[in-house]
């Protein structure tokens, strides 16, 4: 873990082409922007706005030795570990979801020491992304003190406040090499509008060196300009825009679809009863053998997607 020197942080983004230019590309082209060994920041949280299509593309591109950071990690963490593309996950909570118990896939990879689950408090993850977004090396915080989480995190420092003398914990910035974020809509330039829960995505986009957006729909720049207050990620931070309907499935995308609960029940049943063979079969069926993202969706099944869509569109319908 290294906090980047300030000059380096600035230099990394200094020479970007910041013009309003078309950044639309395919999942495969976007995956090529992610280097082996990169630190990848993943947008959304738990089962929400997970950039599943981008993770799907990274797994198919057989990336190696990625580290991944996210506020809370769900089944995409299983997939990242079991596919072999990721060695380390930095997060505050990692399991498929409380209704499915403790992920046996996470347990299998972490308990053997094969993979690392680096645990921070949820607010600490927030401070890390925010410090990264602010161009600061750290932010002070009042939680994690007194806990055993502290002893396992050599990256943090303790200090007494120079004004009050109170104890504070200094949380180092995190500036991912690339952020992958799924949004409801954006334009070809990368002006991204997020409905509903933002989680830590805005800080993540500002902190990262590069941003890959996947989106349910690419809209015109005129549409964006009609509601600029809805734009949460500015275009000049963005490097790639990929249009992928149902890009979070089987997780949810606010206002459009809920998680495919029955698919998640099937998935957790299969992989938690057999974390190795069950996971291999799942990865083969859904990640390796489909010819396209649409074929992946086809394998999840129209009925499941329609059910998820009905739930997502009716959630605020009172």
């Amino acid at each position, binding site marked *: 873990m290294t906090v980047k020197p300030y000059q380096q942080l600035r230099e990394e983004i200094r020479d970007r082409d910041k013009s309003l230019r078309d950044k639309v590309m395919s999942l495969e082209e976007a995956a090529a922007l992610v280097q082996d060994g990169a630190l990848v920041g993943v947008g959304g*949280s*738990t*089962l*929400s706005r997970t950039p599943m299509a981008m993770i799907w593309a990274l797994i198919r591109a057989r990336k190696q030795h990625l580290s991944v950071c996210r506020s*809370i990690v769900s089944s995409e963490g299983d997939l990242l570990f079991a596919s072999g593309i990721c060695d380390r996950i930095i*997060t*505050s*909570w*990692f*399991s498929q*979801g*409380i*209704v499915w118990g*403790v992920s046996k896939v*996470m347990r299998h990879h*972490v*308990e053997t020491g094969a993979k690392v*689950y680096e*645990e*921070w*408090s*949820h*607010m*600490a993850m*927030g*401070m890390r*992304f*925010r410090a990264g977004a602010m161009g600061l090396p750290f932010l002070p*915080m*009042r*939680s*994690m*003190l*007194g*806990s*055993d*989480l502290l002893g*396992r995190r050599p990256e943090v420092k*303790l200090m007494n406040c120079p004004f009050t003398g*109170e*104890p*504070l*914990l200094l949380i180092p910035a995190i500036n991912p090499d690339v952020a992958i974020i799924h949004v409801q809509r954006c334009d070809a330039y990368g002006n991204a509008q997020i409905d*509903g*829960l*933002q*989680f*830590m*995505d805005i*800080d993540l986009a500002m902190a990262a060196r590069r941003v890959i957006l996947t989106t349910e729909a690419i809209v015109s720049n005129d549409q964006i300009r009609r509601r600029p207050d809805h734009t949460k990620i500015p275009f000049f931070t963005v490097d790639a825009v990929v249009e992928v309907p149902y890009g979070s499935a089987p997780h*949810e995308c*606010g*206002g459009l679809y*809920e*998680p495919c*609960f029955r698919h998640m029940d099937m998935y957790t049943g299969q992989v938690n009863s057999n974390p190795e063979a069950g996971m291999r079969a799942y990865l083969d069926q859904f990640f390796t053998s489909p010819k396209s993202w649409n074929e992946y969706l086809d394998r999840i099944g129209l009925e499941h997607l329609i059910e998820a869509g009905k739930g*997502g569109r009716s*959630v*605020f319908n*009172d």
Partner: protein
Amino acid sequence: MTEQKASFSASELLAVMSSRLMRDGTVVFAGVGIPLLAAILAQRVKCPGLTILFEGGVVGPMIEPGKLPPSTNEQRCTRRANMVLSSTDVLLLLQRGYVDVGFMGGAQIDRFGNLNSSFIGDPDRPKTRLPGTGGGNDIASLTHMIVALKHERRRFVERVDFITSPGFIAGGSTRASRGLISGGMYRIVTDLGIFGFEEQSKAMQVVALHPGVTMEQVNDNTGFRVLDNPVCTQTEPPTELELSVLRELDPQALYIA
């Protein structure tokens, strides 16, 4: 006792008893599962002015019966909310001091109210890697906490394997001396009773027992000795209203089974 036991599940008892600890006009930061259910139950039965926060960034939602969210990070959590913030900003409300009480479940707890949701066994070679803190550490560090969990010897241990979410650390004033100058464990709600922490030692002490439960039964199910309390009271069993609201909220028994 047998009759009452037949009429509600242990999870329902936990949800009802913890919902009664909520106060109208306060702000509660709730985790998923029983805490979420208990907070909504309180809101519907006796605290219409209770504001619920979820770590996904939600301020003051009204959850729809039968559509409980699978975690506190999905759109179901945002229904009829007053506001959605970023996760970081909603967690910062804890640090600022706007949250009266935090409310969560737990895997393992010790006599000083420390919670473990990270490792069973040696953290370097864990027997079980658990999902981790989520917002638990932040909530436990920065506000008063209510924890709801089933009363089992394997969960109530002398000393947790790992302090994920700090209670009173090693008791006495150790919480403050380790840098946590606010908050602390308030109540532990189990299917046997309600527990607090003795003023000086900060060791777990009984506050109230559920009907028919004895201290002997409590100590038989606890890996350490729970302090007696001369003013220990008896709780009132769940009412028909509480149970019916609860079952309406969770008709699939996702959390109350």
